[in-house]
């Protein structure tokens, strides 16, 4: 593991070689171990170290150049700095360049777990075995992936800024399918500590879903349905919402937060009052750093507060033009929940669809945030408060904005990850009027 002193030495060395007024050095180092399995056996797996030094140089008249090197010898770093500076001198002035930040006081985050940082096959394989045992007990076929990583992020610049942070992360996901490929179930766990990963639980959940889905699947007509979205599905929608909180796009007519005729929806109550979406880098469930892309200290920030659009993401440049303080990037997202369980949501639904997760989501229209995607690995009909029949998969065309507006109830949030938008802490939700566009024959 790259120590704080080693990281500092690398940064100091690079800055020492620098001749231009500004030089920023980002160091990233990571060690990870992973095991992939399929057809009830391990397929590929590995152990690796990766590292890189990213050097950004800026001239007095705001010309910028960037070079990234992965060999960390003195000569390599020197050549990297020379390369970044040569590019900067050749480039043209960047009117959006911001002055370098001086020393910052970064918060201390608790998201490094030494057990996870040292874990190798001996502690990961038992989880794989547990998943495969669950599959075999139900005559199913399991595929999946378990990984853990230990990472170092360090940053420094010529103006005296320095930061160093270590964090770990881990995950286990698995998919179980029937022999004939007639049903598929999925479950996943994510945590900064591998101690929170439990192969037996993950295997049991996906096996139950797969077995439950193995009966004749109902092919309901496309249309608008009440849906109960499990956290992995909500995580993708919330991620898409988060990506679109930029002040620049909102003010320049290119986001769902832009208003017809000009202006933005900042300060408006667009959502029910029980919708609160915020960034919380201090939540120890997130594998994150004490600073964001701006290098300002990370902080908590509400984007939607009790249904009201509360803040936009202002990077340093846009904030300076708007006369505002910069805000952290909409990362480490938490959607607040309510005191319900998934069972409560199901019980409260007369007729709807319980959806495990989504797949392949892409934007159709920025101003409504209409996106398209598919359901995957478990869709079930809910009738009179009970899960009844398995249902086919669907393509859907819908906006996460409308889904949040149509949300009726939420569970307690948990750390989840869907297929597209990274990890967040979100509840399951029940929402009305979800637009299923066509049947997908995929299982």
């Amino acid at each position: 593991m790259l120590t704080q002193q080693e990281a500092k030495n690398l940064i100091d060395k690079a800055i020492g070689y620098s001749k231009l007024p500004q030089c920023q050095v980002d160091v990233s180092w990571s060690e990870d171990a992973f095991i992939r399995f399929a057809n009830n056996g391990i397929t590929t797996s590995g152990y690796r170290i990766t590292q890189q030094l990213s050097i950004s140089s800026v001239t007095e008249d705001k010309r910028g150049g960037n070079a990234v090197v992965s060999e960390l010898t003195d000569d390599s770093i020197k050549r990297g700095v020379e390369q970044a500076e040569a590019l900067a001198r050749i480039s043209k002035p960047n009117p959006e360049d911001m002055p370098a930040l001086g020393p910052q006081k970064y918060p201390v985050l608790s998201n490094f777990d030494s057990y996870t940082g040292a874990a190798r096959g001996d502690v990961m394989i038992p989880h794989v075995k547990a998943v495969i045992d669950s599959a075999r007990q139900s005559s199913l076929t399991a595929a999946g992936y378990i990984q853990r990583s230990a990472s170092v992020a360090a940053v420094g610049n010529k103006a005296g800024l320095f930061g160093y942070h270590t964090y770990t992360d881990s995950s286990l996901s698995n998919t179980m399918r029937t022999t004939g490929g007639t049903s598929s179930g999925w479950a996943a766990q994510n945590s900064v500590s591998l101690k929170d990963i439990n192969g037996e639980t993950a295997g049991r959940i996906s096996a139950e879903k797969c077995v439950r889905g193995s009966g004749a699947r109902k092919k309901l007509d496309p249309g608008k349905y009440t849906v109960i979205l499990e956290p992995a599905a909500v995580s993708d929608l919330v991620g898409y919402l988060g990506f679109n909180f930029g002040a620049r796009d909102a003010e320049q007519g290119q986001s769902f937060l832009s208003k017809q005729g000009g202006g933005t929806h900042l300060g408006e109550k667009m959502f029910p009052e029980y919708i609160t979406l915020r960034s919380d880098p201090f939540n120890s469930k997130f594998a994150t750093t004490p600073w964001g892309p701006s290098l300002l200290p990370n902080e908590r920030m509400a984007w939607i507060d009790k249904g009201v659009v509360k803040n936009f993401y202002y990077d340093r440049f846009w904030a300076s033009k708007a006369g505002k303080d910069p805000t952290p990037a909409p990362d480490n997202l938490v959607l607040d929940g309510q005191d319900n369980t998934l069972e409560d949501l199901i019980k409260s639904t007369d007729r709807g669809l319980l959806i495990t997760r989504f797949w392949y989501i892409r934007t159709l229209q920025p101003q409504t945030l209409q996106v398209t995607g598919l359901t995957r690995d478990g869709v079930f009909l809910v009738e009179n408060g009970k899960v009844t029949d398995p249902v086919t998969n669907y393509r859907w065309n819908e906006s996460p904005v409308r889904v949040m507006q149509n949300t009726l109830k939420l569970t307690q949030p948990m750390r989840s990850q869907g297929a597209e938008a990274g990890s967040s802490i979100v509840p399951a939700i029940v929402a009305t009027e979800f637009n299923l566009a066509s049947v997908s024959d995929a299982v």
Partner: protein
Amino acid sequence: MKALPDFTRRAFLATATGSSVLLANRLFGAPEDAAAKPNPALEKLAAVALAEARKQGATYCDIRINRYRQQFSGYRLSPQRGSNQTDEVPFVTDQQSFGFGVRVIANGQWGFAASPLVTTDEIARITREAVVVAKANSAVQSSPVELAPTKAYIDRWTSPYEKDPFAVPVDEKLELMHGATLTIKKDPKVFAAFGFLAARAEDKYFASSEGSSIQQYIVQVDPALQATAVDFQKNISRTRSYQVQPLSAGWEAVAKANLAENAPRIRAEVLEHLAAPPVMPGKKDLVLLPSHLYLTIHESIGHSTELDRVLGYEANFAGTSFMTTEKMGKFQVGSELMNIFGDRTNEGGLATVKYDDDGVLTTKFPIIEKGVFKHYQTIRDQAHLIGETESRGCCYADSWASVPFQRMPNVWLAPGPREVTPDDLIAGVDDGILIEGEGSYSIDQQRYNFQFGGDAFWEIKGGKKRGMLSRVAYQSKTTDFWRTLDGIAGASYWQQFGSFFDGKGEPEQINAMSHGCSPSRFRQVNVLLTD
């Protein structure tokens, strides 16, 4: 699985991996007087891994020592806050990544380890780590790894290019992109202009315990322009891009792209797109141009014929496939006009290389012949699973730090008869749409149900191309769609578009491949009106 969404692409461009200039320079210095043999210094390093693996009881070992170089440069022209003044923002980044990965088979199981420290001690250590991984995993294997045979090759190969794109001065590149973006932004009604130029080079060395020693060098370029227009009153925005074929080629391909000449066209077309009426949804005939159709081929045929998906190896991530093994040799995927090849030998293809990351000599093979499914994309450890005796050379990884696995070759659609022109295809359409370029794209995890947008849409009425339309997407099922193919333009209209951002595998790997095709016509496809 799929090409990456925009935000991932942005993140990729902003960070990416990096690396060395010195040891890497010594190992991968420009091919000396067209030497046919790999650099002995690389062979010496590789020998350490091969010997250590043997000592540790591995039955197979290969090592890849690779360097990747990427340079991104360009301009964004966009309005200042609350004003019509334009900020002209240049960007330029050089990235290098250098390291090695060792793959072994021990106790019948794969093991892999990788490091950026290219020294003999570290190579020996990492080789031992790879054997430890393999032996630990052998406790949970479904069946021992079996490799299809391959010859041992000692060779050195370079992808064809005329002018090294890294040797072109950066100020010349910036000047080119600045000029093109200024042209786009010349009309004040255009909101923003973006010009992007990527150059990529891969130095790769492969040695195996079966006697291969292969050094290869690949050079690729990818220029693009985009215009954005915004109507604040209607609260809509539209884009129009000039997509250029990304190719394994040198700077000559950028010169041929005629960026300066195309900039005024997309300036006019983005405004036409902004004002274009919405499509009337329903069943319509489609004429799809290569800059659009390539992605449809990629998603519906490229991914569905990957053998690892079919056999369940991707079940937890990218998914499986409808093209199950009993369909091989008899299943009618599309119309008889449909002839599709897997090919890692065609000049200019982004997946073109002489040897794959299994050390197998690459090849061209039919995937679909007269509409019938013929062959899967395979690698050495899969061939026996479908009763075949050799790999089709589709093994590769996106980095020295990634495990090589089955990835897509260039998958291309053969052109139609020489005399057929795009105008002929349009002339045969009474009510349809001509589509160019990439828009949104999405397909299910077994490659049945897809929905594609595009970059630009023109109405076809009574056999004639009319004005632009907006808010178009089409939705279909792979086999339904390809069975309606009833016209393909001739070879002179064949173009090779492709993607640098195809994701698959866990941990996810991002690779590049091309999908050549000529303009093609599809009948009565379900067209939707999007928001």
